[in-house]
Structures are given as C-alpha cells and as structure tokens.
C-alpha cells in the first residue's frame, strides 16, 4: 500500500501596494473598496484555501520625501478588513500582518481574540517586527527600537499574548443567572509579566476564543527571525520558493522544532509564489512576460533605479543600458523600499556586472530583480509542480499571490485547484465548523506551555 499523500496547504495573498500589482490592467479594480476584499475572500473560499492573507501598511512608501506615484499606494486597515470578511465568509481563515513593534500586547491580543470570536475560530496573526524610524514616525513610541531589540520585543510580545489568551477557562464565563455568579473567583487569572520590553499586571477582558489561541504566522528570515519562528510560529511565510533552497529552508526550520518539544506538523511552511497560466507552455511563457512588462513599465524601471542611485535618472532610457553616473551615497536615505544605505556602491557594481554579462536593459534588469518565484505553465504543470514541492518536503504548500485586484486568484481556483484535487493532495470540501487550526492540521495549543518570563 502506498503512503497517504501529504496534503497541500494554500493561502491567498491579497495583492498589495507594490509593483507586483498591475493597476493599469482594465480589469483591475479598487484596492480599497470592501467589495474587492469580499470578492477575493469568497473566491478563496470557493477554492477551499486555508486562509486569506493581508499585509500591513504603517506608512506610505516614499522617496526623497515624495510618495510613490507609479505603483498602487494606500490600503485599508488590516484588522478592520478581516473583521468585515468574518461576516461575509464561513470557512476560510483570516490572517493579518500586524507589527509587534507598533502595537501593545494587551490591545493586539484582544483584537485578535475578537477576530477569532467573530469568525468562529478563523483568526491568524502574521507577527512581523518591522521597525525603523521611518515607520516609527507615525507612532507614539517613535523609532526608538534598535534592530537588535526587535525580536526581543517580538518574543516577549508573543509569549505575553499567549498567556493572555490562556488566562480564561475553555468554557468561558460561568454566567449563571440563578446563582448570580458571572465570573468565578480567579477568572480570568491574572497575568504578571516583567521583562526588558513589557511590565504588565493584566486581567484580560476577552473570554477564550474558539481556537484558544489564534494561529501565529511569521515572516522574518534572519537568524533571530528563524528562532522566533521555531519558538512561536505555526506557519512561516517564507521567500524561499526555488526548489533546492526551499528544501534547505524547510530542513533548517523544521530541524529546530524537536529541541523545543514541537512536532514537524506543528509548523507549516508556505512560501510566496506567483503564477502565469496558459493553455500551452508557450502561451504561459508569453503571459508571464506580458505580466512582467505590465508590472515594470519604463517609468517604473527608472524609478526603481532612482531608489538605488538616489538621484534623478529621468533622462535615461529604460530600454537602454544602465546609467553611467555614480550613485549619490550622501546622507539622505530612501525609505519604504528594501534599500541598505551602507551597501549602495557595492550594489550598483553588482548590478552593472549582471547587466553587462547578460546584456540587459534597465527594464530587463529590474524585471529580473523584482521577480518573485513564479509557476509558469499549463494548469496541469502548475498543479504537478505544487504537488511535487509538497510531497518532496520542500514546502507544505504556498502563499499564492496574484497580480490583479480583486480577480487575481479566480483563474487559479478554477483551473489549478481541481487538478490538485484529482491528484488527491487537496481537500474536496471544508469540514463543517473547522477552525483555521483544523484547516492547517495544527495541534491544539497546550495551555500553560508559556513560562512567565518567556521570550
């Protein structure tokens, strides 16, 4: 008898505010209207996805004090959208990216517990640490947090949130009208925590939610990030989607679980992946190329280089060679884009090397730099690739990112999902009353497994 197939897990990423999203396409809709999110989530539910996934915006991206004009900019508040989606969906999980640096544990824990109640146990939290003075400028605490302290705060934050969620009994308040006892004495239990980042003496005010604890997702990649993931995460949203690299990452992270008393099934790894579907391989390749050209228009390509060069390059031709001027490594930093001040010059040299070796124009180079992992091919090819990754333990599935709002995953759900079902590695329906934790095949949280001083 053959071994049972490992099951594919899929998350649906709402296209965000970056050059992935093709707003110039005539079928592209609003990034803000709730109707877009509703369509997206309902389609994800038709495709039997595990969850829909929203990023978080804490500040508009800008360059030299001016906000980006060329890409989609602006998005709604993550938690508020997810609470609305809880009302119009029944089964699909609702996962939001929410910073540990610019929130407080008590407040965020109660918001997540609220979302878990409102959705009947479908809430998840992508705990990110994003912290710099640029984002901090919008918050009370400011940009005070050192890079090194981010994961200290994240660890204390997650541990404290778990203890708050655990502080109510499973059965909720007694609420016995006859005796007049609403809360038994000692309910909820008091949560005292004194650490480097937080010092609280808390009585949590949201009763135990359907999942006990919302699912914790994580997306950091540094050594600290991976430790945090191994300690707290139940899903990792990684950027490691090339097969060999994905397998290495998978082994590394899952290998860290045993020493923490965790099983392999207690953590799922779902890297981001985009796709381009065609009726033939050739058509799919053409489609992929078209999408890339829509994503990186000539003005987008020049603007991208301006981030790196830190100077006006508007006189240069996107279809020509890289600018021959040197970057401005002066004082002002570009923000909201993955730029590292110190390494600007080295980076420019490296880019020149790549462009010369492969004879790339500015636009071709930028397409290569911004490309995410993409499945390109017929629906059959994409389904078999996804399945191969999962059966061969490179991933547990994918976080699928479309390039259109809000219809970006419609075609994927219609054409790829049925083939995964045929292969026997994807669910054929939601189980009634399943929580997000159930959909992901995660174990139930063990109350009290968080030591008081835990990081």
């Amino acid at each position: 008898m053959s071994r049972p197939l490992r099951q594919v897990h899929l998350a649906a990423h709402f296209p965000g505010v970056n050059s992935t999203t093709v707003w110039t396409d005539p079928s592209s809709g609003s990034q803000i209207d709730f109707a877009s999110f509703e369509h997206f989530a309902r389609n994800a539910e038709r495709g039997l996805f595990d969850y829909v996934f929203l990023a978080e915006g804490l500040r508009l991206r800008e360059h030299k004090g001016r906000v980006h004009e060329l890409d989609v900019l602006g998005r709604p508040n993550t938690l508020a959208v997810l609470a609305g989606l809880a009302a119009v969906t029944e089964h699909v999980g609702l996962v939001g990216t929410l910073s540990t640096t610019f929130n407080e544990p008590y407040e965020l824990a109660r918001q997540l517990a609220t979302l878990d109640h409102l959705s009947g146990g479908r809430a998840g939290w992508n705990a990110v640490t994003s912290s710099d003075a640029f984002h901090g400028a919008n918050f009370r605490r400011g940009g005070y947090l050192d890079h090194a302290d981010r994961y200290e705060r994240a660890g204390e934050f997650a541990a404290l949130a778990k203890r708050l969620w655990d502080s109510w009994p499973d059965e909720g308040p007694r609420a016995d009208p006859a005796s007049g006892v609403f809360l038994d004495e000692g309910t909820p239990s008091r949560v005292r925590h004194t650490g480097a980042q937080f010092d609280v003496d808390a009585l949590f005010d949201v009763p135990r939610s359907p999942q006990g604890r919302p699912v914790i997702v994580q997306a950091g990649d540094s050594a600290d990030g991976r430790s945090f993931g191994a300690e707290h995460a139940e899903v990792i949203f990684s950027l490691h989607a090339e097969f060999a690299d994905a397998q290495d990452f998978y082994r590394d992270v899952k290998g860290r679980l045993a020493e923490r008393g965790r099983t392999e099934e207690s953590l799922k790894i779902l890297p981001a992946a985009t796709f381009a579907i065609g009726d033939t391989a050739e058509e799919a390749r053409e489609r992929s190329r078209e999408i890339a050209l829509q994503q990186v228009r000539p003005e987008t390509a020049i603007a991208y280089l301006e981030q790196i060069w830190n100077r006006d390059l508007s006189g240069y031709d996107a279809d020509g060679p890289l600018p021959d001027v040197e970057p401005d490594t002066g004082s002002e930093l570009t923000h909201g884009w993955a730029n590292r001040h110190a390494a600007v010059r080295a980076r420019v040299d490296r880019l020149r090397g790549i462009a010369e070796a492969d004879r790339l124009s500015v636009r071709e180079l930028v397409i290569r730099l911004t490309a995410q992992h993409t499945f390109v091919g017929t629906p059959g090819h994409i389904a078999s690739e996804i399945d191969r990754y999962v059966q061969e333990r490179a991933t547990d599935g994918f976080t699928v990112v479309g390039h259109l709002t809000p219809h970006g995953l419609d075609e994927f759900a219609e054409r790829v999902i049925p083939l995964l079902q045929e292969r026997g590695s994807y669910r054929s329906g939601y189980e009634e009353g399943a929580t997000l934790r159930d959909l992901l095949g995660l174990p139930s949280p063990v109350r009290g497994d968080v030591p008081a001083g835990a990081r």
Partner: protein
Amino acid sequence: MPEQVHVAVALEGAGWHPAAWRDPSARPRELVSPAYWRELLRTADDAAIAFATVEDALSLPVRGEAEPAPGHVGGRLDAVLVASFAAPLTRRIGLIPTVTTAHPEPFHVATGVQTLDHASRGRAGVRLVVGAPPAEVANFGRRSDAISGLPASGRVEDSPEVLAAFREAGEFADVLGRLWDSWQDDAIVRDVATGRYLDADRVHRIDFEGEFFSVTGASIVPRSPQGRPIVTALAHQSVPYRFAAEHADVVFVTPRSAADAAGIRTELDAAPRAAGTPLRVFADLLVLVEESRSEARAAKARLDALAGAPLASDARIVAGTPDDVVEEIRALAAAGVDGVRLRPARLPRDLLAIAERVVPRLNAADALLDAAADTLRGRLGLPRPESRYAREKALS
C-alpha cells in the same frame, strides 16, 4: 410642526443595568458571539435608528475595582472590530465604536475608522473616551499616569492629571482629523498614459508635533466616503463640553430634566468650535420598557434586587411604557436637543422595545428626524468636509 429628533442607541454587553444578564431574555453566555452582535445591529438597522454606539474599554468592565465583581458581566469584544464586522451586514445605520485615547495609537485608530467608513459606505464614527483608569494602565504597563477618578470637588479643572488627559484626547482627535484629511478626494488618478497611479501633490504629510504625540502621516488609507467620519464624545461638565465642542460632531449629554437640557445646549453653543459645522447634541436616556408602568417598575425592582442596589446612572432613567419614553424624548426635543441616545437597560429586550414600540410611535407623531441620505453625516444633516490640505492649497 412638532420638534423632531434623531434616535440613536448605545449597545453595552447585556444592557446597561448591571443585573441585565440575569433577565430571562438575556443571553449571557453569548455576549462575545458573532450571532449576538449581528442580531443587535440588524435589529437597530431595520428600525431606522440613526446610529449605534458600541461601548468598550481596555479592561474588564469593573469600575474602579481591582478585581472583577463576581456578579458583574466580565468579558467583551473590541468595539472597532464589532462595528467592522457589522458593516457588511447592515445597510443604513451609523456604526460608532468606542475608543479610549490613552493607549491606542491614533494612527491605527484613524485607519481603522476610515476602513469602517469605506466598508460601510459612509456610516462610520468613533466615540472618544478620555483618560486611563488604573486597571487599564496595569494591563498596558506603559504609563504611570493612571487616573482613579475626579478630585473631591468633582470638577475636572481641579485635577491637573484629568486636564492633561483632556489635552491628550484633544491632540488625539486633532491627529485623527488631519490623517483623515491627508488624502484629497481625487488623489488616485490611475492615469495609464503617464503611468501615474496617484498624484503625489494630493497626498499630504500631517507633520503633527504636540505635547503627547508626533505623527508624520499621511494616512495609509485614501480619503473615505464621509471625508471625516463622525467624532463623538460623552460629556458631563464644562471641560468635557469644551472638548466636545472643539473636537466632536456629536456630543452625548446627560440632562436631569428638559430645563437642564436647555441649559447644557446654551453652554455648548457658547463654547469655541474649530469646525465650521454645527455640533449635534444628543441627550442620553437609560430606558427599561414594558407595556405598563407597573410592569416596568416591577422589572426594574427585580433587577435592582438581583444587583443588590438600585440602578445608578449618569443618564436619566426611564422605566415605563413606550409612551413614557416617547414623552421624555419629546420634552427633550422641545428643550432643543438634536437627538437622543437610548441606553437599553436589557439586551436584546429593550432594544426590541425601542425598535418595535418607541421608534414607530415617534414616527407616527412626526417627531422622528430622519433625513434621507447615503451617509451618516448626511443623515445628521452635517456637510461633508473638504480636506483642510486641499483648502490650504487652494488658498496659497
């Protein structure tokens, strides 16, 4: 022509009577269930109620005590998220969650309420609550300036801490307004020919520097249907009246009588006001409704006995028939308030009574003010504000 008023409701747990959860109609184990809030808000929506406030706090609902009293309701949901959940489930009603100004980030609150405004197509507001009681401060552990109550005089101006809390709340409201204005209505241009999604000149940093906050902005959310969602506050005396007049669109007051209401209205009208728009004054009434006065009195006495003390409230209590409630409302209308906010003593029972017995009677008496409008602002007869940054640019 009779005086007309708006009718709003204030939703709190099992109701505003501390023993309401022991009423036979109560569903005390469902206070955190989606079905409970869906039903309450749909009932209010169907009844043509102008808006519902959703009460909240960042601690167990214990007033000034270190440990929760076993007989009191403990446990609730985040109000902004309850309102966001209700947005796609309702059609006309304004949704006004409560937010305290001492802990949350104004940036998060601004974007959350803007998102509620987008999702509800212009029906969002927020009720700001000033200050941080000790239980909240302990939950956050972030500040040392807990406020355990008013000074012995009962007057806000005699407490430097409370005055500071009002200044902080003023800044909080100011930051909300600026963030809401930070995108002009027409900032998204989607000009395929030039490749411009947005016109950067129509998105503005707020660069706010105050005593309590500094927030750079702009908001991450484009301008919402109402431009600025409705800001509301509850106020009982002069300093809060001035706070409300300066920063709010709607103020909830607690007159002891119709004459008192007229006096409050006069004081509010004299207070300095930043916005060029009128301030809407709503009188709060705590209502327990039965078909006869004796039944209402008996029901209240039963709950009082269960609670171990007669109901105490900052708002006037009306335990009576639907007609009694209508009479109270009409007297307040005659005294010059723009609306009433009814606090149901028991949920869902008194909300149903308001929806089925009180509102129709007001309507029949032509005493219900209900402008046909798409947004909450329009419904309250308030103009849609232009972004201050658009205005500044036009002037410069």
